[in-house]
C-alpha cells in the first residue's frame, strides 16, 4: 500500500519533471499569469532574443496600473500609461491572451483566474505577484515568483523549487455572524506571526474552512503570504466543483465529470502527516482589525492597542512605540475610539461579489461619515453588483463606485491615501506607506470597513447587523 499523502504531496508529485541530487526539483507550470509589472521579464526575453514556450498556458491581465476612478482610456500620467501599453504590446507580440482594459472580463488577476475557470484544482500556477497564493482556494498549488523566475517560466514553462515543509492549519467549529474569512485569516496571522509559515506550504482544513464559500476561501488563501507561507490551499470539494461548473475555461460536459473524478482524489489521505500542525477554534474568533504596520498586529475589535510601557521586552517595546507613532495612535487606546478618514473596499483579498454584498448589507439605508472608494474585483463583478443594485447602496451612502483593478491597495495607479490619513481597508497589507507615503492602513473585513464608514471610527459590525440579513 502506498504511504498516505497530503494534498501538497500529491500536487508536487504530479508536477515533478526532474529531481536533482541536490534536492531541487524542476516542476511543470500549468498556468502562468502575467500583468503590467511583468515587464522586466519580457525585457529579459527581448535581450535573449527568445519567445514564450507555451503562450496557450500564459494569460495576461491589466490590473496593477489601470485607472479605477474616472475615465479608463485616458491615463494622464505617461509613465502609468506606458505600463498598461507594455503589457498589451508584449501580449500581442507573444500571442498571449490578454484581459485588457477594453475586455469585459478584465479585473484583478487573482479574481479573474478563478472567475474564468482558468484556475482549477490540481494545477500548478505561478504569477509575478505574492498574492498568487489566492488560487490555492480551489485546490491548486499556486505561488508568487519574482521577475527572473517569470522570465524562466516564460521561456521554459517550468520552475525550480525545493520541496517546502508542510503545515496544516485546522479551524473547527462555527464562526459567529459578522465573523468573515478575513477575520479567520487575521486571527491565524496574529497567532503564528508574519513569518510563522515561512518556507511552508499550508493546507487549511477543518469544519469552519469547509463551511466557507469559495469567495471566503479565496480571501483566506490570499492572506497566506502575510504569514510568510509559500502557498495556501484547500482540498477541492463539492462547493469547489459547483463553483467551477460552466466557467468559460474549465472543462465542459463529460470532460468536466471526468475532471471532478480526478480532482476528488486530491484530498489529503487520512493518516498523512504534516511537518507542523496549528489549530484554532472558530467560535473564539471575533471581528478583527489591525492597529500597527504588520498584518500580525491584529486584535479583536473590543481590545485596546498595546502600551509599550507595559512591554518587558525592550526590542518589542521599541517596535510598539515606532508602530504606534507611525499610526498616530496613543498607547493603550481602545480600538473603537480610533477615528478613520476614509474607507477602501477592494483588492484581490476582498473585492468579490460576496464581499460587496457583505459591505452593502451594512451600508444599506445608512450614510458613510467619511469618503471612500469601492473597487469591484473584476468588470464582470462590477456588472453583477449593478444588476443586484449594490452600486446604488454604495453611492447612496456617499461612497465612490469605481472600476476594477489593484487600485488603492498598492496605489500604483495613483489612487493613494494622503499622508497622515487613516484608512479602514479590506486589503492585505498595512505596511508603512503601502497605500501611499505616510498613509495609515487598518486591515479588516468588508463588513467591518462598512461599519467604520457608518460610524466614522473603527467599530464592531455586529450591533449594526441586528435585524438585517448579513
Amino acid at each position, binding site marked *: 500500500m502506498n504511504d498516505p499523502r497530503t494534498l501538497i504531496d500529491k500536487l508536487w508529485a*504530479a508536477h515533478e*519533471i526532474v529531481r*536533482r541530487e*541536490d*534536492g*531541487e526539483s*524542476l516542476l*511543470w507550470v*500549468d498556468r502562468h499569469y502575467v500583468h503590467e*509589472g511583468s515587464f*522586466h521579464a519580457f*525585457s529579459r526575453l527581448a535581450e535573449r532574443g527568445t519567445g514564450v514556450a507555451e503562450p*496557450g*498556458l500564459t494569460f495576461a491581465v491589466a490590473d496593477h*496600473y489601470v485607472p479605477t476612478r474616472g475615465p479608463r482610456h485616458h491615463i494622464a500620467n505617461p*509613465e*502609468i500609461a506606458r505600463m498598461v501599453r507594455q503589457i498589451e504590446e508584449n501580449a500581442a507580440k507573444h500571442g498571449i491572451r490578454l484581459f485588457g482594459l*477594453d*475586455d*469585459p*472580463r478584465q479585473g484583478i488577476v487573482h479574481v479573474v483566474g478563478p472567475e*474564468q475557470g482558468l484556475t482549477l484544482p*490540481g*494545477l500548478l500556477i505561478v504569477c509575478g*505577484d*505574492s498574492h498568487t497564493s489566492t488560487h490555492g482556494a480551489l485546490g491548486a498549488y499556486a*505561488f*508568487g*515568483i*519574482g521577475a*527572473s*523566475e517569470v*522570465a*524562466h517560466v516564460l*521561456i*521554459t*514553462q517550468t520552475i*525550480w523549487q*525545493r520541496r517546502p515543509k508542510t503545515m496544516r492549519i485546522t479551524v473547527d467549529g462555527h464562526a459567529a455572524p459578522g465573523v468573515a474569512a478575513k477575520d479567520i485569516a487575521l486571527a491565524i496571522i496574529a497567532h503564528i506571526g*508574519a*513569518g510563522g509559515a*515561512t518556507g511552508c506550504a499550508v493546507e487549511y482544513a477543518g469544519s469552519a474552512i469547509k463551511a466557507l464559500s469559495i469567495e471566503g476561501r479565496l480571501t483566506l488563501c490570499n492572506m497566506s503570504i502575510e504569514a*510568510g507561507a509559500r502557498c495556501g490551499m484547500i482540498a477541492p470539494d463539492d462547493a469547489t466543483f459547483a463553483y467551477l461548473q460552466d466557467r*468559460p*475555461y*474549465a472543462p465542459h460536459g463529460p*470532460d468536466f465529470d471526468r475532471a471532478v473524478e*480526478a*480532482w476528488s482524489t486530491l484530498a489529503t489521505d487520512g493518516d498523512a502527516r504534516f511537518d507542523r500542525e496549528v489549530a484554532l477554534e472558530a467560535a473564539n474568533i471575533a471581528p478583527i482589525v489591525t492597529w500597527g504596520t*504588520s498584518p500580525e498586529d491584529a486584535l479583536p475589535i473590543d481590545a485596546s492597542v498595546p502600551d509599550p510601557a507595559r512591554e518587558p521586552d525592550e*526590542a518589542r517595546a521599541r*517596535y510598539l512605540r515606532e508602530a504606534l507613532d507611525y499610526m498616530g495612535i496613543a498607547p493603550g487606546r481602545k480600538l473603537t475610539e480610533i477615528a478613520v478618514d476614509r474607507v477602501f473596499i477592494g483588492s484581490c483579498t476582498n473585492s468579490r461579489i460576496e464581499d460587496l454584498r457583505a459591505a452593502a448589507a451594512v451600508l444599506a439605508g445608512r450614510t458613510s461619515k467619511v469618503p471612500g472608494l469601492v473597487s469591484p474585483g473584476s468588470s464582470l463583478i462590477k456588472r453583477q453588483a449593478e444588476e443586484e443594485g449594490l452600486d446604488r447602496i454604495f453611492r447612496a451612502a456617499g461612497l465612490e463606485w469605481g472600476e476594477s483593478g489593484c487600485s488603492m491597495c*498598492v496605489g*500604483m495607479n495613483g489612487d493613494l491615501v494622503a*499622508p497622515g490619513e487613516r484608512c479602514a481597508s479590506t486589503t492585505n*497589507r498595512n*505596511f*508603512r*506607506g*503601502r497605500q501611499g507615503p505616510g498613509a495609515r492602513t487598518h486591515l479588516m473585513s468588508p463588513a467591518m470597513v462598512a461599519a467604520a464608514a457608518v460610524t466614522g471610527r473603527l467599530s464592531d459590525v455586529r450591533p449594526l447587523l441586528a435585524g438585517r440579513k448579513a
Partner: protein
Amino acid sequence: MDKFTRLTATACPLDVANLNTDQIIPARFLKRPRASGFGEALLHDLRFDAEGRERPDFALNRPPWRGARIIVGGRNFGCGSSREGAVYALYDYGIRCVIAPSFGDIFSGNAVQNGLLTAVVSDGDAAEIMATLAHAPELAVTVDLEQQTILCGNRSYRFAIDPVCRHRLLEGLDDIALTKSYRDRISAFKASDQRRRPWAAPVLGPAVPGS
C-alpha cells in the same frame, strides 16, 4: 550574473523585524527599466523625509555605513510583495550580502537570481553582530561563502544557506541555460502529462461580446 565568493566591507545594522519589500522599495519606483538603476530608491521613505531630505538618524545615512556593502537585518527580512525591485535596489546601492535570522521566501529566491547573498544566522548571533557594529561602526566584516562564515571583530559565526543557492552564487550560474539542458525530459513529461491529466488544459472559452 556576478559570482560571490568572499567579501570584506562595512556592514550596516537595520534592527527591524519584518522589514518588507514595500519598505525596501516603495511601489512608485517600480516603473523604471532595470538599466536606469534602482539604488537611489533603496529604503527611500526610511532614508528620506517627505521633502526628500536625508533623515540623519537612519543607520544607512550615517557616515561609516553609507558605503556599506553588507546589511544585518532582523527576522523575516524581505517579507511581503514579490517585487524583484527590492533586490535590484539593494544590489544597485552596492549591497552584496544581507545577514538576518530569516528571510521572506520570494525575496531570497529573487536574491540568488541576482547575485545577492542572503546569509541566515541565529537570532542571538544577529543581535551580537549588531551590538558589535553599534560599538565599532567602521569595523570591516568578512563574509566567506565557501566556508559559510562571517568574521566580525574577533568572533566568527556560521551562517546557513541552501546548498543549491550557495553553488549558484559561487559559480554565478544562469538558471535558464541549465533548464534548457533538460529539454528532452520536459518534452517527455509534457506528452505523458497530457494523457494523465487531460483536464489540465484550458479549453478555449465561448465567445464573449467585446472580446
